[in-house]
């Protein structure tokens, strides 16, 4: 076993600020949606708008960082049998006390399921939210880009649908990230310090 630096400073900053912004936007977004009243509608809408721009800015930096450092390769999907091995592990083997089929190292910091999940998050859920979000934000000016035919109801449908996916991801992610490491919480600690013990 050795302590290896798995997560760079920027990556950790990106992860946690993104987490905070996503949670903030889920809360304010569902208030705007009319699910509950917490901050007041106007306040919620203003925070949501502010957080949206911050998150888009953060995403731009993250894309740049991933592309320039080559870290984007960490999201290339694994072969199907390796993904299925992970599914089999979570579905059955974990209850039998069998060992984890995947072993982290510096160039493979995500397990095969994580790779696919994070790729989906960043390529589909994220863009679906912020593209529909920008259309939402500039709805009154859509005529300028020839999209005046696009009804707000459709934009809202995509935006809300993607928000539900994001919330679902968050629930699953929290469970897996907090409890799946050995001991529980080690992955969270690693995401804070950057270092994690990995097998040699």
């Amino acid at each position, binding site marked *: 076993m050795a302590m290896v630096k798995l997560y760079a400073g920027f990556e950790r900053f990106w992860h946690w600020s993104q987490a905070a912004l996503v949670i903030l936007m889920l809360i304010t977004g569902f208030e705007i949606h009319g699910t509950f009243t917490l901050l007041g*509608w106007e306040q919620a809408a203003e925070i949501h708008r502010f957080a949206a721009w911050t998150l888009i800015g953060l995403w731009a930096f993250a894309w740049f960082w991933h592309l320039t450092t080559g870290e984007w390769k960490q999201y290339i999907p694994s072969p199907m049998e390796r993904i299925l091995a992970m599914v089999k592990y979570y579905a059955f083997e974990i209850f039998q006390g069998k060992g984890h089929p995947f072993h982290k190292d510096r160039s493979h910091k995500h397990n095969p399921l994580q790779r696919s999940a994070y790729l989906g998050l960043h390529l589909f859920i994220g863009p679906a939210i912020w593209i529909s979000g920008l259309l939402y934000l500039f709805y009154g000016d859509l005529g300028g880009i020839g999209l005046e035919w696009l009804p707000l109801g459709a934009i809202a449908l995509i935006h*809300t649908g993607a928000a539900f996916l994001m919330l679902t991801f968050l629930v699953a992610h929290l469970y897996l990230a907090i409890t799946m490491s050995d001991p529980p919480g080690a992955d969270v600690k690693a995401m804070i310090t950057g270092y994690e013990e990995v097998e040699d």
Partner: protein
Amino acid sequence: MKSFQSCLRWLLSAVLFLCVSPVWAEDSQSTADHSKFEQLQEEFETGPEVTKACLSCHTEAAKQLHKTTHWTWAFENQLTGQTLGKKNVLNNFCVATATNWPRCTSCHIGYGWKDDSFDLSSEQNVDCLVCHDTTGTYKKFPTGAGHPNYEPKKWPPKKGKLRQPPDLQMIAQKVGKPGRDNCGACHFYGGGGDGVKHGHLDSSMHKPNRATDVHMDSEGLNFSCQTCHTTGGHEIAGSRYAPKPSDERGVVIPGQPDQNRATCESCHGSEAHGEEANPKLNSHTDKVACVTCHVPEFARGGRKTKMWWDWSTAGRKDANGKPLVKKEDGYAVYHFKKGDFTWEENVVPEYFWFDGDVRYTLFGEQVDDSGVVPINRIQGSYEDPDSRIWPFKVMRGKQPYDSKNKILAVPHLFGKDPDAFWKSFDWGRALKAGLMARGKEFSGEYGFVETEYYWPITHMVAPKENALGCVDCHDRNGRLAGVGGFYMPGRDRNETLDLIGWLMVLGTFGGVTVHGLGRMVSKKGRSS
């Protein structure tokens, strides 16, 4: 002692001078002191005599007025082709002017419109003073067909207060530009009393405070009516018959051909919210009228407005056989002459898409008496770029109609003749006389049909801190809950998506909980 007396004399003459010195001298920039005009030195017996004197200098004034709706009480709506105006339309207050002329025309800018024979081409019958009196002492007598009383006379008749005739000479010598009180003398009391008709115009607007009307605030901007209802040649801008729900001209500046300022945009522009305001506000103005947020409620000046008028119950007597009048909170809720009323203040408007197209149910038009009959209909939609969501007072009530011919009736209410409803309380006679006066045969069968009348709200603009907030509309049960044709965040949602979404989230939560518990149980099983 002598010097004290002379002091007193001086003081008295000073006070006297101040009292009689013309109003114009204090606050007007007029170049004419009407008290010095030779024509105005005579003892006027009647209003028309004053007008004659006015016209000897203001040669074109009466001709100008003859072209206005204020004079003709007739209005040709260019958009709909309908002939409107007080002379022609029906409403659900006192219903119609025909046969009730002397009472109704106490708010006409003329003298003597007491029946159909009134000469609309008479220049001398134009009443200059009702608009140009600056003393506040000129008042048309309520049943005088536009004349003030020239003898001391009681109003209401018999037990009312004695009204002295106005001092026409003094009033004529002090004429000036109309103020809020002049316009308000009629427009604040439309429908037969203070605040009855409009709800956003009532006696509180003589001297409104800031909360009631931010523009007319007597201690602030102190606008007169003409500040917005710009005038030229006695023609006054702004019309309820042909309203303008959106104004694309932007801020009106000198040199533009159309100087009409009777829209919010003509001063504020169409994106009026400054940089300090929420940036989203300006992006609402292409769909939401200014007044929708900025007149959050009407009848806010401490006066109630009439919201319901049921003529069908009129004519009742109390246990002692005396005509019945019931009052609540100082307002008549039942009057034997007029039926049942409801009054409200601080009324939340009703909101509708509005493109300025208002169509009236004209006299003689067949109505569908199976439901509520619209006195007027408003149009507009989300798709139409000229439509805005606009606030309305919807006046509702029940009024008489010819139930066989299916037309709204004209009740002959006022008069000394036995056909007048307020004399004999016989609907059959009153409706026959009223319909006949407008050239229709009465079938002899009548009933009362429920009607509604849409009144666009424009006045009583509140200070910005009292304007509506987002959540007033962006809410499931917000103010725009009934306004259709578009998706509004906070109000609308796709129920199916919400169901699927929450099932997915809760399903995942349930799944990971079961998974976690399973792991704990299996681990315990293995370790024991």
